[in-house]
């Protein structure tokens, strides 16, 4: 981005696009340019551990899958006109050395910044021998070592001698939670979990038993399900966790190994030798991001992250400019994806009026009806330049195709995907009256949609198409044996033709979307989601069980940044109440629901009255509760609180706390225990906030926080530091030796074994606060039944994909936000509420949606009414037809996975596009020779 002018709603952005010297329209990603390029270059994608060429594919999964020339290293550019090998050998003439940077002016109403992060560079520190010894690597380098596309094809070996290490050490907090010059004071949030993941995968990849040890200060696995993963790594996989402080990492010359000197939890000095050391480096802001921020005039915080408030977690200081991902704060994938949704929601609200104004409708070619015609298959065999033709004898394959039943036409192409060939294929389909098409070429993974478009242009149903993968899965992998490759290509064409003959036109189901959303739960997450929908112009029903909106927000005092939650809540409630598109249903619950994506009907009950609302999408924001513990004498003494009650007590009568001499906080009450093996995420920060508040009320108060790991992730680390500097005592206890609370008359005494001092400590306390777990509500279970929603073993809602779809249910059209999905602080609940709204709007805005045609269907005559399909369907698409008693599948909900089909013992179910006869035909042809 070069410059920007204008303001929110009407920016003009000048963008310079670097020349890539390869025409992406012509490049077929055959890789000949890279093969012929004589110039080796350090491959930054593989963290500098391997080499690539100056003509290269950025990485194997690159989208678009197109090559690029690195001009800084290309001989042609560096030596003025020599070489040109890539241009000479490129089969499609895609190389263009005259390519120039394109400057574009783009008019936009909003901008979203997601420039990512830079890993901490441990060269800045000499403690770890990084840069001086090849077997000390960063976590990012180790990630590449583990990857099958990495420098060692996924073999877990160390760089110095490429031998498999027997002992690996991970050192945590490298460049994070570190006040040294050049390091960062904050916690990078993600390193504990990624180190555990790497240790587990390293053990899996290792051919002999591997000793994997993680050296840490606190294990911070506060993300959803991460604690369970930590426990599994420790108890089942045998990853060792060593609480320690590292003094030095020194090379051992003879063995090329490394000697780690450290101080353990009990203060003992130890040294151990490891074959390899992985530095868990933290996340920082890139330098060019800082200059981008300067150009845009957005405020940065002390660490150069984009300054945001907890209440507008994706809004920068500049109107119309939003932020998501690690530039806002260090974070993991799920929360980055949530923030991406949140930013889309915030930008969408600003652009609501302009929605759809730039849409252009594609002209539709009427579809020819082929029913009743005998199959006339056209086979197009591609040479892909030399990619296929250089190995597979394509003419032989084409001649063979002519001998196959129902094949009416065969053609050999130099490039089947080229635009002019596409035009020709369209004409041939019409001229020859073809009603099935087989293309033998690269892969359906990349090219099926393109060829299907060709069919549509020729007036054929796009499902009358089948591809034979004779490049990626044939010529490219059997280049050493052209005969075998040719035979296999023939076999693949025969299989494809056999399937094509049995294909039928399929219809995509059209669903009209009811232009309204239902949000269940009126806490911060639910209200945010409701406003997200309403601000983008959609009707919303917001259902809240209680007499007032607000949820837990009504009890909380301040965010960890010190923002006043009550004041914000008041503002949000007022906006909700005044918004013409939001209908609030207080003291109401959903008692029944039916329908599916785009078309739900839910019954909302208030007292004796019931109302049925129709809605296209549903957002579940049911919240959760703080556990009322049954231990530590909770409920028997007025001075034993849970965290939320302490907040309320301070808010209503702060005087009472000025007299107190000693306060004790006990962490992990009911969390991270066998019966509830998850971390409640917010409690460490909450207790430290409360402790600081008490300290403010009475600076002489002695305050003790009894903890197992302090999980003040991200910049919350700052308040942990503040607490320690103000004399708040942190005492580590272990799950095996939990603290003990004794109530004698009016007196409270806490006894705990300090893990560091290995000593029993007794504290006479005036106040005890139990940081008890966040537990799901019973309502979650009820509602999950209405909309057929999955829950995890802890009773929280299960997202469709833990990393990439953190607000979606597997059931289409239903989204989640807030505590019902898992414990999280205010800003994350708000971001998730916005993300749920964004996901919801993407459906509502479509007005009509077409679902996939590859769906299961029943032949009810065969159905024995056993109900297995209904039980097994993960999407709630199968049900019993009330009239006939037979199974039925709703095509709008079906994802075409085929589970029900494979499970049906009566053969009543089948899958369109992958049916039994088609698959049998392919298997039979594969083996018929």
């Amino acid at each position, binding site marked *: 981005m070069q410059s920007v002018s204008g303001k929110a709603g009407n920016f003009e952005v000048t963008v310079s696009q670097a020349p890539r010297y390869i025409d992406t329209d012509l490049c077929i*990603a055959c*890789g000949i340019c890279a093969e012929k390029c004589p110039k080796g270059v350090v491959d930054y994608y593989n963290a500098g551990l391997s080499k690539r060429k100056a003509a290269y*594919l950025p990485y*194997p*999964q690159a989208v678009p*899958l197109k090559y690029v020339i690195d001009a800084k290293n290309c001989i042609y550019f560096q030596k003025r006109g020599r070489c040109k090998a890539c241009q000479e050998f490129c089969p499609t003439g895609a190389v263009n050395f005259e390519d120039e940077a394109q400057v574009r002016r783009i008019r936009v109403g909003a901008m979203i910044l997601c420039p990512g992060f830079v890993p901490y560079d441990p060269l800045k520190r000499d403690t770890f021998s990084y840069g001086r010894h090849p077997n000390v690597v960063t976590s990012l380098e180790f990630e590449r070592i583990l990857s099958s*596309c990495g420098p060692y094809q996924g073999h877990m070996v160390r760089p110095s001698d490429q031998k498999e290490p027997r002992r690996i050490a991970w050192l945590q907090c490298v460049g994070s939670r570190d006040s040294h010059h050049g390091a960062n004071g904050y916690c990078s949030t993600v390193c504990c979990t990624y180190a555990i993941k790497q240790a587990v995968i390293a053990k899996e990849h290792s051919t002999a038993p591997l000793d994997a040890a993680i050296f840490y200060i606190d294990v911070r696995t506060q993300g959803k399900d991460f604690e369970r993963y930590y426990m599994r790594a420790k108890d089942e996989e045998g990853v060792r966790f060593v609480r320690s402080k590292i003094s030095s990492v020194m090379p051992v010359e003879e063995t090329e190994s490394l000697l780690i000197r450290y101080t353990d939890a009990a203060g003992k000095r130890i040294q151990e030798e490891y074959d390899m050391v992985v530095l868990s480096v933290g996340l920082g802001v890139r330098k060019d991001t800082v200059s981008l921020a300067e150009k845009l005039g957005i405020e940065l915080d002390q660490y150069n992250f984009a300054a945001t408030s907890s209440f507008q977690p994706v809004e920068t200081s500049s109107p119309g400019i939003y932020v998501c991902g690690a530039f806002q704060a260090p974070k993991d994938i799920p929360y980055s994806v949530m923030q991406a949704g949140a930013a889309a929601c915030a930008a969408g609200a600003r652009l609501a009026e302009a929605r759809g104004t730039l849409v252009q409708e594609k002209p539709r070619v009427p579809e020819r009806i082929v029913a009743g015609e005998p199959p006339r298959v056209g086979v197009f065999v591609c040479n892909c330049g030399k990619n296929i033709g250089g190995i597979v004898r394509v003419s032989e394959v084409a001649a063979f195709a002519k001998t196959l039943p129902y094949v009416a036409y065969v053609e050999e192409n130099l490039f089947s995907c080229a635009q002019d060939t596409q035009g020709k294929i369209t004409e041939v389909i019409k001229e020859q009256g073809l009603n099935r098409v087989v293309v033998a070429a690269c*892969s*359906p*993974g*990349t090219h099926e949609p393109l060829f299907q478009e060709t069919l549509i242009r020729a007036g054929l149903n796009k499902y009358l198409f089948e591809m034979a*993968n004779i*490049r*990626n*899965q*044939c010529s*490219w*992998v*059997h*280049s*050493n*044996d052209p005969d*075998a*490759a040719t*035979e*296999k290509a023939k*076999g*693949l064409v025969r*299989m494809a033709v056999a399937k094509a003959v049995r294909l039928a036109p399929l219809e995509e189901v059209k669903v009209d979307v009811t232009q309204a959303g239902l949000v269940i739960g009126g806490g911060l997450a639910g209200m945010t989601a409701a406003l997200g929908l309403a601000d983008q112009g959609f009707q919303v029903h917001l259902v809240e069980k209680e007499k007032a909106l607000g949820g837990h927000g009504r009890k909380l005092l301040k965010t960890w940044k010190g923002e006043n939650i009550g004041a914000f809540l008041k503002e949000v409630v007022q906006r909700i109440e005044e918004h013409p598109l939001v209908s609030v249903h207080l003291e109401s619950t959903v008692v029944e629901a039916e329908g599916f994506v785009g078309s739900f009907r839910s019954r909302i009950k208030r007292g004796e009255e019931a109302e049925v609302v129709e809605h296209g999408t549903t957002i579940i924001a049911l919240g959760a509760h703080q556990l009322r513990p049954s231990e530590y004498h909770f409920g028997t003494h007025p001075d034993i609180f849970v965290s939320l009650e302490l907040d309320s007590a301070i808010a209503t009568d702060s005087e009472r706390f000025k007299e107190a001499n000693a306060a004790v906080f006990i962490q992990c009450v009911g969390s991270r225990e066998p019966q509830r093996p998850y971390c409640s995420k917010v409690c460490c920060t909450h207790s430290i906030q409360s402790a600081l508040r008490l300290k403010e009320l009475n600076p002489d108060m002695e305050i003790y926080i009894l903890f197992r790991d302090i999980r003040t992730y991200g910049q919350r680390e700052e308040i942990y530091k503040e607490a320690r500097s103000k004399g708040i005592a942190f005492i580590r206890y272990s799950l095996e030796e939990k603290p003990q609370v004794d109530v004698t008359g009016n007196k409270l005494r806490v006894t705990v074994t300090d893990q560091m001092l290995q000593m029993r400590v007794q504290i006479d306390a005036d106040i005890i606060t139990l940081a008890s777990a966040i537990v799901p509500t019973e309502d979650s279970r009820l509602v999950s039944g209405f909309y057929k929603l999955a829950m995890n073993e802890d009773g929280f809602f299960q997202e469709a994909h833990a990393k990439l779809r953190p607000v979606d249910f597997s059931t289409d059209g239903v989204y989640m936000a807030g505590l019902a999905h898992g414990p999280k602080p205010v800003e994350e609940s708000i971001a998730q509420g916005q993300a749920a709204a964004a996901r919801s709007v993407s459906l509502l805005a479509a007005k009509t949606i077409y679902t996939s045609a*590859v769906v299961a269907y029943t032949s009810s005559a065969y159905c024995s009414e056993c109900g297995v399909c209904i039980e097994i369907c993960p999407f709630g698409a199968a049900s019993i037809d009330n009239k006939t008693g037979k199974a039925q599948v709703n095509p709008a909900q079906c994802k*075409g*996975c*085929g*589970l029900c*089909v*494979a499970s049906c013992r009566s053969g009543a179910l089948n*899958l369109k*596009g*992958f049916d*039994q006869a088609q*698959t*049998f035909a*392919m*298997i*039979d042809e*594969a*083996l*018929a020779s």
Partner: protein
Amino acid sequence: MNNWEPRIIAFLCEWCSYAAADLAGVNRLAYPSNIRVVRIPCTGRMSTKFILDALRHGADAIWVSG
């Protein structure tokens, strides 16, 4: 039996293993050609009937991956 090569039918989920097989091609990782891939939409679709059918038609090994 010295030259005997098994005939292998692979049922690959189009979202993961089939894509991985494509990626093996992108990386030019060579492997023997006596394998035929049947693309399935998800291993959920995998029916024992397919395995029996392949064995009945002379497959020596079946590989299901997803």
